[in-house]
C-alpha cells in the first residue's frame, strides 16, 4: 500500500466550530476534509482559508442524516485513499421547541442527524482505523446535554446520547489504539448564538464564570489537543469548554 496522506475529517466544516476545527487541524499538519449539506460556498471558503495558509483541504457534500450516503462517502473518498488520522463528528442541527409541542419529525430528525449520523460516521471511521491500528475520534456534544436546556429536548437528548456512545466506543476501540473523546462546548460565538437578542445574551453571560462567550477557536484548540500526541492517553472523556458554566 502506498503511503497515504494523514487526514482529518470534520463533518459540518462550513461555519463556526467545524470551520475553526478544520483550520486548526490543518495547522497541525493534517490534510483536512470537510463536509457540508447543501451550500458548498462556505465549505469552499473554509478550504480557501486553509490553502492560503499553506494547508491542504477538500470539501464534500454529505447529508449526515442519510446512512447510505455516509457508507458511500467513506467507501469512495476515505477507504484506501487517505490515512484517516482524525474524525471530528461536528455536524449537527437544531429544531427547537417546547417538548409538549414537539412533533415526531422534529424529534426524529434531530436525533437522526446529531446522534445517528455521528454514530454511522464513527462506525465507518472505526472500521478503517481498526486496520490502521491507530486513530482519534472526537465527538462534538454540548453543555446543554449536561445541564439541560428548555426548548431543546431533542437536541439535548441526542447530544447526551453522543456522550454514552463516546464512552462505549472508547472501550470497544481502545485495543486498537483508537481514542474516542467528546468536547462539550458552552455558549460559543457562532451563527447560532448571534441570533440571540441582547437580553438573552446577558442572561447567559451571568451564568458564565469567565464572563464571555467562547470562541470557535477555544473549542478547536481542545479538539486539536485530543488529536495530538499529547492527548494519546486520554479516552472516553467529555471535555467541557464552557467558561465554567457547568462543572
Amino acid at each position, binding site marked *: 500500500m502506498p503511503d497515504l496522506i494523514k487526514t482529518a475529517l470534520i463533518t459540518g466544516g462550513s461555519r463556526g466550530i467545524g470551520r475553526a476545527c478544520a483550520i486548526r487541524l490543518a495547522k497541525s499538519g493534517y490534510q483536512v476534509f470537510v463536509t457540508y449539506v447543501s451550500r458548498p460556498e462556505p465549505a469552499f471558503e473554509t478550504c480557501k482559508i486553509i490553502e492560503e495558509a499553506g494547508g491542504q483541504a477538500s470539501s464534500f457534500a454529505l447529508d449526515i442524516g442519510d446512512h447510505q450516503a455516509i457508507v458511500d462517502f467513506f467507501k469512495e473518498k476515505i477507504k484506501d485513499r487517505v490515512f484517516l488520522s482524525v474524525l471530528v463528528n461536528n455536524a449537527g442541527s437544531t429544531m427547537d421547541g417546547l417538548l409538549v409541542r414537539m412533533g415526531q419529525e422534529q424529534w426524529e430528525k434531530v436525533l437522526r442527524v446529531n446522534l445517528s449520523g455521528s454514530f454511522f460516521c464513527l462506525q465507518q471511521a472505526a*472500521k478503517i482505523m*481498526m*486496520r490502521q491500528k491507530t486513530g482519534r475520534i472526537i465527538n462534538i456534544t454540548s453543555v446543554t446535554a449536561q445541564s439541560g436546556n428548555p426548548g431543546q429536548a431533542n437536541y439535548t437528548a441526542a447530544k447526551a446520547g453522543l456522550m454514552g456512545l463516546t464512552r462505549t466506543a472508547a472501550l*470497544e476501540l481502545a*485495543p*486498537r489504539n483508537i481514542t474516542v473523546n467528546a468536547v462539550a462546548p458552552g455558549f460559543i460565538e457562532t451563527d447560532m448564538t448571534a441570533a440571540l437578542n441582547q437580553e438573552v445574551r446577558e442572561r447567559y453571560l451571568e451564568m458564565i464564570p469567565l464572563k464571555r462567550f467562547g470562541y470557535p477557536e477555544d473549542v478547536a484548540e481542545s479538539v486539536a489537543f485530543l488529536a495530538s500526541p499529547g492527548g494519546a492517553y486520554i479516552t472516553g472523556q467529555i471535555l467541557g469548554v464552557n467558561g465554567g458554566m457547568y462543572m
Partner: protein
Amino acid sequence: MSVDQRVKEIVVEQLGISADEVKGESKFVEDLGADSLDLTELIMAMEEEFDVEIDDDKAQEILTVQAAIDFIKANQ
C-alpha cells in the same frame, strides 16, 4: 489461489502469526489467541475478500479456520 489458502492468508495477516501455526482445525480464540475485536476484523476481512455477507449469528458459529473455509465455499 484456493479458498483454503486465501482464508489462511487472511488469518495470518489479521492475527499477525506465522503461516505454519494456521491449521484447518485451529480454533481462533483458543489456539490462535484471537480476541473479540480480532474475530470481528477477521469476519470483516473475509466478507470483503470473498464478497459474502456473514451475519452475527453465523459468525458465532465460525470457530475454526476450517469452519470459515467451509462457510465461504458454501456461500460463494
